[in-house]
């Protein structure tokens, strides 16, 4: 299967029904996208597929073929969201944060100046068990000022 991840064409020798998540993690060896629930309930595996936030645990490799897939590494490390995340010391255990940041990136791409309510709604599908929600919200606002 041919996948376009972070702007590069990658071949993965996997069955077409394999979720994008496991192809990325186990076969492309890109572990930034996390496994959390496997049923699109927690958002830890969120990636951008043609700019839209998608739960990679619930999209097959076959369906992802031909699309532009952007993962956390694709943000480059100095994306305003990553800068804001660091500045506000958002992460605790950190496991959900790749997914949170990708979801936030999709939000800001579609809505550069989100209200509190916009943020809560857009982020409602991303669980953080450490409870970093208030810092996530503040970091998104901070980044929105910089985007």
């Amino acid at each position, binding site marked *: 299967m041919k996948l376009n991840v972070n702007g590069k064409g990658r071949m993965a020798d996997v069955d077409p029904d394999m979720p994008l998540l496991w192809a990325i993690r186990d076969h492309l060896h890109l572990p930034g996208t996390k496994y959390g629930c496997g049923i699109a309930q927690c958002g830890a595996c969120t990636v951008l597929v043609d700019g839209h936030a998608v739960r990679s645990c619930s999209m097959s490799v076959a369906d992802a073929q031909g699309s532009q897939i952007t993962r956390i590494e694709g943000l480059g490390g100095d994306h305003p969201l990553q800068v804001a995340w660091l500045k506000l010391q958002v992460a605790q*255990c950190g496991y959900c944060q790749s997914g949170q940041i990708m979801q936030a990136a999709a939000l800001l791409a579609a809505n550069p100046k989100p209200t509190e309510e916009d943020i809560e709604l857009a982020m409602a599908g991303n669980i953080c068990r450490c409870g970093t929600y208030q810092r996530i*919200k503040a970091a998104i606002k901070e980044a929105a000022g910089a985007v």
Partner: protein
Amino acid sequence: MKSRNGKAGPLSLTRRKLVLGGSLVGGALIIGYTAMNFGSVAAGALSIGAEQPAASPFGPFIRIDADGWVTVVNAFQEMGQGVHAGIAAIVAEELDADWGKIRVVAAPANTAVYKNGAMGMQVTAGSSAIAGAWHRLRTAGAAAREMFVQAAAQKWGVQAGTITVRNGMVIDTASKLQESFGSLLTLAAKQQAPAAPLLKSPDKFELVGSRRIGRKDGVSKVTGGPIYTQDVQLPGMLVAMVAHPPRFGAKMRDFDAAAARSIKGVVDVFAVPSGVAVVAQDTWSARKGRDALSVSWDEEAVEKRSSVELRQLFQQIGELKTNDSGRSYFSKGDPAKAFNEAEFQASYDFPYLAHAPMEPMNCVAQVDGRQVKLTVASQLQTIDQINTALAAITLPGSVQIETLPTGGSFGRRGLFSSDYIVECVRIARHVGGGKPVKLVWTREDDTISGFYRPMAHHRLWINRDADGLPAAWRHHTIAQSLLPIGPNSTEVEGIETSSYVTGCSVADCRVFTPTVGVPVGFWRSVGNSHTAMVLEHTIDQLAHMGGVDPAEYRRAIYRKAGDERRLAALELVCERAGWGHSMQDGWARGLAVHEAFGTVVAQVAEVAILDGRPRVRRVVCAVDCGIAVVPDQIAAQMEGGICFGLSAALCGKITLGDGGTPAQNNFDTYEVLRHPDAPVVETHIVPSRRDPSGVGEPGVPPIAPAVANALLVLTGEPTTSLPFVS
């Protein structure tokens, strides 16, 4: 200990079990403690010329390299609580190191050196890391600093008294000579490590308590760095999944592996004591293989009772309607007459709760004959080593553990059974040859694996004195024991230390620990996760009975008991929350104050009922955790603890359906707090000169009663069971 030219010198053992030493190992200065006769051990190990702190002769705590970088060896598990930042701050403070050139690495499993003082094991639990590390790491940092000062004095031919250290630079204030740690390294290693170096007075702290220091792991966590067990990739690694029984206590009777074996990528299928293991080339193949298995279970010993049945049983036990008279853990006065006509009676029910960390349980193990290597987010290395040794039929010393950070734990990885680790070791032993095996649990595996916060029932009878304060307190707590044998105090912690109870002239507190076939375990804040709700919600009901403001009612009790710390936290939270000021229609404030693990936390929650469920918009939190080491991380733990407690209070529950099957197995059914329900938390730290106490857990307990107390104002009805939304 003294080291000359890389050879260990003689060591005079002091009466302290751990002896501080410093030496040059592989070009780096290592400061650490040894639990053994240092001379002989060190001589052998030094000749190896170990490059890694893990392989150095005596449990290192600090390593300083020629480039001036300071490495702090973290004996504790980093599970999100930011412990690495705290211990780095403690060392950097006493060493006067450059905060920008400090890094933290995980310690190897070595109980003798890295045991957590209070518990006698290498474990991260009980919010004890910073408290446990405080004196030891300050001493190590100060000793290293003194060695650099002595080295500089020797080199420059000046008095040590005029030498100071700032940001990793050793400076003679008289001659203005200065050199870095790096350039003084060799000479520093030749100095005698002082046994009792001079520690800074807290008012001289520059890093500890500063807002400018924070976590060191932020970059890897916002760039998707491969730091978790789930991310481990080793050459030739296989991935395993296990088919577990659907109910607690079932055993595998028989299985048909034919379909599973036919799945592409599946390497092997075999029985393990916990079920049937499928080993495959990758995670998805393992998953498909497991789905294709056909397993029949022996359900003879299954726990078949439902939550409803267990709750009825617990209630009967609480009313002394069974032959269980419990165990008295606190009594005072003559209870015979005091409760004949209790004017206040209440009962509270709490469900089982899963930890549900974002990273489900997993482990990487390699077993080669009697040698075992684990790469795993171990929270309880001492026990994990022993259990692994038993499973692999070897000795604990042959079990090497590389401790990784974990994607949350909340107690799940700190179990006496090491359940998922043992499962992985058995599979890796079957595979053999040192081949790495990664055990992956799905969210469903994790959620129905048990080791829950125990279901609990509390029954209270209380009478008041002429001033309306509690005078007689009878309290029955019914919950499974967290220890394998007998009753224990963890399920009633917080009760006998509460001045609400100790201030009474009569008290009769008992704990009942019925046997239920559901595995239970430590869950963030342990017994406090329900005792705080019982104590703090009860006290508000008593205040309302007497028509007294709940803050005033608490003040009266704390004053009578001389409980200055609770008083101070109460005053601070009331002031910052605007307690007593009017609120917008439909909103109310609720207050709770609780001490857990030596830390006092007071919270005021602003609550309304929107769409039929409690909505918490703001929580003001005052925390007394002694000297604040990293204030921003204390705030983070209060924010996180409140969300964790609120999640459980609002919607958290594992219920056993008819026949004992857990009714929740993933986030669609096991509901947790999400963004829209998360409150804004404001944290205020009570100034203190006491040694630090922990903050990982104490933020959790007060939020449920704070919300319940606000709901009491809004509805007039007490809360008698959690979660609020059922």
